């Protein structure tokens, strides 16, 4: 099985659904260690992606992700906007105009996305950011791909690892983003960006089911 444009469109639709559904939850997560807007930002961004996709039909997965990147960049704002924008843009670049994505290409695209976030935000693992969802996710994805798993396996592995990564941010002391202002008081809260990252990767996995 390979992933095509239909998968990409299903993914983005499911991601938009997830953002709408988890909007409140993401706002709540951003309340104690941020400024209560992450859910609103992500929901606004993905609603815009949905609208864009109603007008334009991208030809291949790379084009769909590029359109997503530009839309998130221009609609999300805050820290998350440029970070997700860069992630989707780098993934799109990695995919080029391939119509069908195999497991290895997929793992490489996910890696490019993570690297984009790190290049942009300069966060390291353990800084309590979305990087703490993405890094385990790409490691798991790479593992699954090199174990000969298909794209479905790769996405499953990535989503599971991202979810675990998000949970693992609970005890971390934030060193990047708004939560870092809180110092010790950031401990004991889950990072909202890590949770939204896990939701997006879970949507990708579901879209491949």
């Amino acid at each position, binding site marked *: 099985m390979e992933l095509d444009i239909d998968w990409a469109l299903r993914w983005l639709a499911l991601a938009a659904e997830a953002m709408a559904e988890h909007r409140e939850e993401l*706002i709540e997560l951003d*309340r*104690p*260690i*941020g*400024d*209560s*807007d992450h859910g*609103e*930002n992500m929901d*606004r961004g993905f609603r815009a992606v949905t609208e864009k996709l109603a007008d334009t039909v991208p030809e291949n997965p790379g084009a769909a992700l590029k359109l997503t990147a530009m839309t998130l*960049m*221009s*609609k*999300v*704002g*805050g*820290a*998350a*906007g*440029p*970070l997700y*924008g860069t992630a989707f843009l780098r993934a799109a670049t990695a995919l080029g105009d391939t119509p069908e994505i195999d497991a290895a290409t997929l793992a490489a695209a996910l890696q490019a996305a993570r690297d984009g976030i790190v290049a*942009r*935000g300069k966060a390291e693992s353990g800084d309590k950011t979305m990087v703490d969802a993405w890094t385990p996710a790409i490691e798991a994805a790479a593992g699954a791909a090199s174990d000969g798993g298909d794209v479905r396996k790769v996405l499953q592995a990535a989503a599971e690892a991202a979810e675990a990564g998000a949970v693992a941010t609970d005890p971390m*002391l934030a*060193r*990047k*983003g*708004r939560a*870092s*202002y*809180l*110092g010790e*008081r950031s401990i004991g809260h889950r990072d909202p960006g890590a949770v939204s990252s896990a939701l997006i990767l879970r949507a990708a996995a579901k879209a491949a089911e």
Partner: protein
Amino acid sequence: MKKLINDPRAVVDESVEGFGLAHADLVTVIAEPKYIVRKDAPVAGKVGLLSGGGSGHEPLHGGYVGMGMLDAAVPGAVFTSPTPDQILPATLAVNSGAGVVHIVKNYTGDVLNFETAAELAQAEGVEVRTVLVNDDVAVEDSLYTAGRRGVGGTVLVEKIAGAAAERGDNLDAVAAIGDRVNQNVRSMGVALTACTVPHAGAPSFVLEENEIEIGIGIHGEPGRHRIPMENADGITDRLLDPVVSDLGLASGDKVLLFVNGMGGTPQSELYIVYRRAAQRLAEQGVTVARSLVGNYITALEMQGCSITVLRLDDEMTGLWDAPVHTAALRWGV
């Protein structure tokens, strides 16, 4: 949550539209992508000055667009930095060929979005310099944080750099004076109550009747620590002392003292804080040469205040005094 709003998602749109109607003599409001631009922009030969950030801090930044201050302001959603697709056209709109200075408060979101916009503008041939404002002494500036936040000092950077641009300074000079203001200004704030982001619907943190939060920013984010309520003089000392020591103020220094309301505090209380701060500075031999008291950079309806001190030199003083004509700051014209 009781607010004078219609739809929580239309707050910024409708508010900026009302601002444009009320100040049509000063500004033009572009609805999509949203920015507020000086009526006569671009001003021939003048360096363009642009700032922006999340909404909810009014009159910052739209209230400072006009002669002698900003050429454009780019409002994001409430407490959310604006996006490059707003910042880029605003940058192009205020570029007369002399280049554009971006005044950016040091928050990850603002920094990243302005960075992208600056790259895009530069790709279109517009020279951009960025002045980063990070005056909040409540945040440790270290490897372990995103660095100090930009708060009250932003207003002073915008006024003084704006006057430099207006008198004809070139791009590097305007950026340099902006940086100099930033290097000489420090702030710290306190919240008596939290504020409620319209789309979030509930306060961003909860303070008990007898608690206050020291070291808050302007986004309804919690501060550094929470203490039992104190009287105004005690609170003033808690804000002023770290500002003074971080600035390394010495007897003989001249300063601008800025007591800022967070949006929900009566002016009478700000003057009680000003009184104490001015008295303490005087005791230390510091001359308060200029003052500013009022709601200039706010956090929606939060009750509380911040104290900002700027160490003045003659040039900064002259630029502060230079004519300005904006919705929120006006003199000399």
